[in-house]
């Protein structure tokens, strides 16, 4: 396939993507509860005649397939309907806004790509040196700041306080033709802040892309040739390395243009700039569905064209594709995954299932009977396979095998038993739930809810039941095996066994992370936030949702003099300790042994645990108490074994040269301990001893900002983690299957991820969030479902290289089945990469959560940082200069994201074979 063929394929793909976007658009807005005609047309704001017109134009009275056809025709001809709010044609409305948005996006994107590439280039060239560290920190910082928060920050700093620029960026009402100079001046003056914010917000993404691509190129042989040729350093970089790196970078930048759109949306909202983003925001606020539908479509189409343009640029840049010759990205083999379509068993299953569906539609009362008989037939047909499968599993638990494991491989025994318990448990849960759901009177729902809440530790299973007789006894006895506690225990046992099995590898990885400076900072930050979540109950002085705990919009109460002095003293000790330590490093003093350092750290943790325990007990918070015991346990486990050898070394004269370091370490530890003690005193003591004390003031309803801040971390972490788990599961499985089976399955899955890459994830999330009822579950599902494509890509790429290795060939030759090879040989090999990617995905999930919350799509009953900022923005906190309400949540978001992405980056550096040093 030549160049022309490849490009033609891209164009066809783009057209297909447009149709898929249309389909998504259609489906989303038909997921809304109720009849689409009701919300699309029967709007009180629209006159009767117009409603009729919409119904006819969109054929809302016609059957679904016809509606879909009409919808496509309408959208492709630019007929997006009438806005509820503006009562004008949506197409024209969007066109005006689109031009404004382009005016905002284009200069900012170009500037940020230029700066980002410059930073990334120098970071990669000076890898591991100071310039690289600075470049990486700048990149990760700008990557971690949500652009809406940066906008708020800039407005408060430059517009409200300094008064240099106007607060909003509304286009001035000046005629360009009569006074072009003034017009341009006004535009630039109003747009400088939004441009600046967007540029800064995007630098990080582009810098990281360039750095990674260039690191790949720098390890190539032709770079040595370039050096040997006598090229200057600058020429080696600019004329040999960069042209090669630019090839992948153009595609990746195009794929990340979604970030540009997402950033622009937020900037436009804060600056009240009349662009697409503001339109989307207003659309959500007014639930103006025609506008949302149209906006989504237009953004998607623009992104598709941008990607197509990037593809053309890519082919122009890469001679390997430009100049003839066969070039395929993957070897697309026939057969594979879809081979099973041709087997008779599949036909049988398909026919039976179709029959079931027909029965379900015609005579629903017989459906259950038919479904069960389908299942029975299928089981009967495959009885031999099923029996063999069970027999093979059962053999693992034969006494001989178990005694062998007991003597030789105990962790494996733990895993085996946990798996057995878990299998039985899941089986019984399924049976119990099916039986319960088959009962009348919402009996099943009660059981399901009870199981789920017990699983997270909030109630007791089984529920108090209204059932009587033998069935009751049966259910109760079954529920013992189906108990959620058993699920948790067996899962924990499995994980612990797995950890024991791979203890060496796990510890080695942890070592490597701690050996990386960025990794340490990241790990400490993330642990601090986790501690904040665990000890939230005792650290939040007020109920974060309680109104009027003080006067509304009350500024922070100044600290009493003694506390402020104590705080200053502890900070001073810390600073002096740090200075002494840095001085010792500067003088090249030998480092003190690890055991002394661990003893100090352990002692500090134990001290903090002792500090927190009485408060936890006083507040009767089981989570905080458990946390305090855990922290104390970790502290003692670290301190005690190291204490003896530490004492022995301290008395030795060999310590003399590193005396400065010892002093520094002692001061750092003491300072931190004092800081913790004072902070805890301030946080827990002051609200009771000084009524009306608010460390960080209050919001417009008189709620305590500090308490909201502390409790808000929980929701962010939970959503981030659960959504990440969903993402990793979907992305990992898809990447594994696509990479291993190749063929049609691979092409299909990759085209599918392509589409998700092109359609900006955040826009889809925002629109879906506006359609679904606002709740934590919606957020988790939305974020989880739309963040997996990059994971799938990375895993697939790695699987593709691993499956060609000789040992996989060997496993195949010995007769290993596909699933065996995939899960026993390939999965462990890609596991480190998946783990590293998990952390980066978590950062993305957290960022998405905060932005969705900020768009008012979060759970209104939950306290979260995004929601705090949403409310602050909505009630004029920026113009009122209520910094204590705006800055803290934003800074928390930035710190958490910084920590997570630093940890992820350090892990990526360790796990990603492409980044390993040669």
């Amino acid at each position, binding site marked *: 396939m030549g160049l022309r063929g490849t490009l033609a394929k891209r164009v066809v793909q783009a057209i297909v993507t447009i149709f898929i976007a249309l389909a998504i658009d259609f489906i989303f807005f038909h997921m809304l509860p109720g009849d689409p005609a009701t919300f699309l047309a029967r709007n009180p704001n629209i006159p009767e005649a117009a409603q009729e017109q919409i119904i006819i134009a969109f054929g809302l009275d016609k059957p679904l397939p016809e509606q879909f056809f009409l919808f496509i025709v309408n959208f492709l001809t630019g007929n997006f309907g009438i806005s509820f709010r503006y009562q004008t044609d949506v197409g024209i409305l969007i066109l005006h806004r689109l031009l404004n948005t382009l005016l905002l996006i284009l200069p900012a994107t170009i500037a940020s790509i230029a700066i980002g590439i410059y930073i990334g280039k120098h970071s990669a060239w000076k890898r591991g040196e100071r310039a690289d560290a600075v470049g990486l920190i700048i990149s990760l910082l700008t990557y971690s700041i949500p652009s809406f928060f940066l906008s708020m920050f800039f407005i408060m700093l430059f517009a409200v306080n300094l008064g240099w620029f106007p607060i909003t960026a509304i286009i001035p009402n000046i005629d360009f033709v009569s006074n072009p100079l003034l017009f341009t001046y006004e535009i630039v003056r109003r747009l400088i802040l939004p441009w600046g914010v967007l540029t800064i917000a995007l630098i990080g993404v582009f810098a990281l892309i360039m750095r990674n691509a260039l690191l790949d190129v720098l390890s190539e042989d*032709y770079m040595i*040739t370039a050096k*040997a*040729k006598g*090229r200057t350093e600058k*020429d080696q970089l600019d004329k*040999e390395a960069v042209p090669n790196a630019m090839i992948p970078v153009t595609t990746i930048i195009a794929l990340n243009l979604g970030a540009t759109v997402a950033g622009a949306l937020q900037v436009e909202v804060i600056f009240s700039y009349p662009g697409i983003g503001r339109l989307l925001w207003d659309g959500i606020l007014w639930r103006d569905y025609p506008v949302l539908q149209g906006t989504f479509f237009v953004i998607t189409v623009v992104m598709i064209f941008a990607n197509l343009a990037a593809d053309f640029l890519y082919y122009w840049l890469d001679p*390997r594709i430009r100049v003839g010759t066969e070039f395929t990205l993957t070897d697309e083999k026939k057969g594979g995954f879809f081979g099973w379509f041709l087997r008779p068993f599949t036909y049988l299953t398909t026919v039976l299932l179709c029959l079931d569906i027909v029965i379900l539609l015609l005579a629903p009362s017989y459906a259950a009977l038919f479904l069960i008989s389908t299942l029975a037939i299928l089981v009967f047909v495959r009885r031999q396979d099923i029996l063999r499968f069970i027999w093979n599993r059962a053999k693992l638990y034969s006494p001989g095998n178990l005694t062998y494991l007991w003597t030789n491989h105990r962790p494996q025994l733990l895993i085996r038993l946990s798996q057995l318990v878990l299998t039985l448990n899941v089986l019984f849960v399924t049976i119990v739930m099916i039986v319960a759901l088959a009962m009348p009177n919402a009996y099943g729902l009660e059981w399901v809810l009870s199981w789920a809440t017990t699983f997270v530790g909030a109630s007791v299973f089984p529920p108090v039941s209204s059932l009587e007789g033998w069935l009751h006894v049966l259910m109760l006895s079954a529920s013992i095996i189906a108990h959620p506690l058993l699920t948790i225990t067996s899962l924990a046992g499995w994980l612990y066994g797995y950890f024991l099995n791979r203890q060496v590898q796990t510890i080695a990885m942890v070592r490597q992370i701690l050996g990386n400076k960025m990794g340490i900072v990241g790990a400490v930050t993330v642990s601090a936030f986790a501690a904040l979540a665990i000890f939230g109950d005792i650290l939040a002085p007020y109920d974060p949702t309680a109104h009027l705990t003080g006067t509304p919009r009350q500024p922070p109460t100044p600290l009493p003099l003694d506390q402020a002095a104590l705080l200053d003293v502890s900070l001073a000790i810390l600073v002096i300790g740090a200075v002494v330590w840095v001085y010792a490093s500067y003088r090249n003093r030998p480092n003190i042994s690890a055991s002394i350092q661990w003893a100090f750290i352990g002692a500090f943790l134990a001290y903090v645990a002792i500090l927190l325990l009485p408060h936890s007990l006083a507040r009767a918070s089981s989570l905080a108490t458990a946390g305090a015991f855990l922290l104390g346990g970790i502290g003692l486990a670290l301190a005690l074994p190291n204490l003896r050898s530490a004492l022995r070394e301290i008395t030795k004269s060999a310590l003399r040269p590193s005396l400065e370091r010892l002093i520094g370490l002692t001061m750092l530890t003491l300072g931190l301990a004092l800081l913790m003690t004072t902070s805890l005193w301030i946080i827990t003591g002051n609200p009771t001893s000084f009524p009306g004390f608010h460390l960080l003031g209050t919001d417009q309803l008189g709620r305590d900002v500090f308490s909201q801040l502390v409790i808000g971390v929980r929701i962010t972490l939970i959503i981030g983690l659960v959504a990440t788990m969903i993402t990793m599961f979907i992305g990992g499985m898809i990447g594994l299957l696509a990479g291993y089976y190749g063929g049609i399955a691979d092409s299909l899955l990759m085209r599918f991820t392509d589409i998700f890459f092109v359609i900006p994830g955040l826009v889809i999330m925002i629109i879906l969030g506006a359609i679904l009822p606002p709740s934590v579950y919606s957020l988790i599902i939305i974020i989880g479902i739309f963040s997996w494509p990059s994971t799938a890509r990375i895993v697939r790429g790695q699987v593709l290289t691993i499956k060609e290795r000789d040992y996989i060939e060997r496993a195949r030759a010995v007769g290993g089945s596909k699933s065996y090879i995939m899960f026993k040989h390939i999965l462990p090999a890609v596991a480190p990469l998946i783990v590293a990617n998990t952390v980066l995905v978590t950062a993305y999930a957290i960022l998405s959560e905060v932005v969705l919350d900020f768009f008012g799509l979060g759970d209104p009953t939950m306290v979260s940082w995004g929601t705090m900022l949403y409310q602050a923005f909505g009630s004029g906190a920026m113009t009122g200069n209520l910094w204590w309400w705006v800055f803290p949540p934003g800074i928390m978001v930035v710190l958490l994201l910084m920590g997570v992405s630093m940890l992820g980056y350090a892990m990526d550096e360790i796990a990603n074979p492409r980044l390993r040093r040669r």
Partner: protein
Amino acid sequence: MADTKREVFLEVKNLRITYETKQGKVKAAENVSFRIHRGEFIGLSGESGCGKTTTALSLMHLLPKEGKVEEGVILFKGENILDYDTKKVEALRWRDISMVFQGAMNALNPVHKAIDQMITALRIHEDVTEQEAKERSLELIKSVGIDPARATSYPHELSGGMKQRLMIALALVCHPSIIIADEPTTALDVMVQAQILDLFNQLRDRTNLSVLLITHDLSVLAETCDRIIIMYAGRIVETGRTDTIFTMPEHPYTKKLISSFPSILVDKEIDFIPGNPPDLINPPSGCRFNPRCDFAVDRCRQEVPPLECENGHCVACWRRHEF
């Protein structure tokens, strides 16, 4: 052939190179000394990881960041190039000493046309017009046996053998005094290998070029080189004229190396050297070959044997004359 009275281009004296690693210092080359005369082809051979490539890279200041020349001198036309600053090194590279890399598949930049890479190399070092540079490059491309019409191709359009010949043309473009050829035939099939060796032989007959040929393929050395240097674990163990080394090797390692090389003509028993090359972080004391040597005595384990020369045949072995 080796006329010692000819002009000495390059002299390496007591070179010691180490690599800084997390496990400790790797002593990659120690006490390495040799000379390259004008027009001479020198072969450098030994097992993988014995310091061949390290020595060669140091001649052009191309050692990776972790590598460091601890002591020694590299005299090129009388000047110690180890003292050169960046500017002078950049000027030296390719104009005076150039290099043909192993696996030319990846040694050419995929985004530049073949001839453009030659033109840039030429114009970095010489003040010539684009036109002149192009003509000279085309001439060279013709002389290595490539159709000039293919000169404007990108590297991916050329076969492995063509790329390697282009690489040689590229190395010749500035008329350097010395070319270092690092495993120039390793990744190629036998027919292409023969073409490349033929090319080297033509070069020897027609020019004054000196070549330092690094390979572990002894047949390649026998085919092309005037003198041979055998290295083991970072040290030179034997040097001498090609025919001497092949007919009368004196160091036990060289003997083993030669007898472990299979031959298609003679049905001989293939010998091998038991054990592995030593750990270069903590090399064995005395002669580094002693743990694997059949003839080692106590002295070999304690004292380092010096490289002693008789009639231009130098051997580092205590028991040189005993067998």
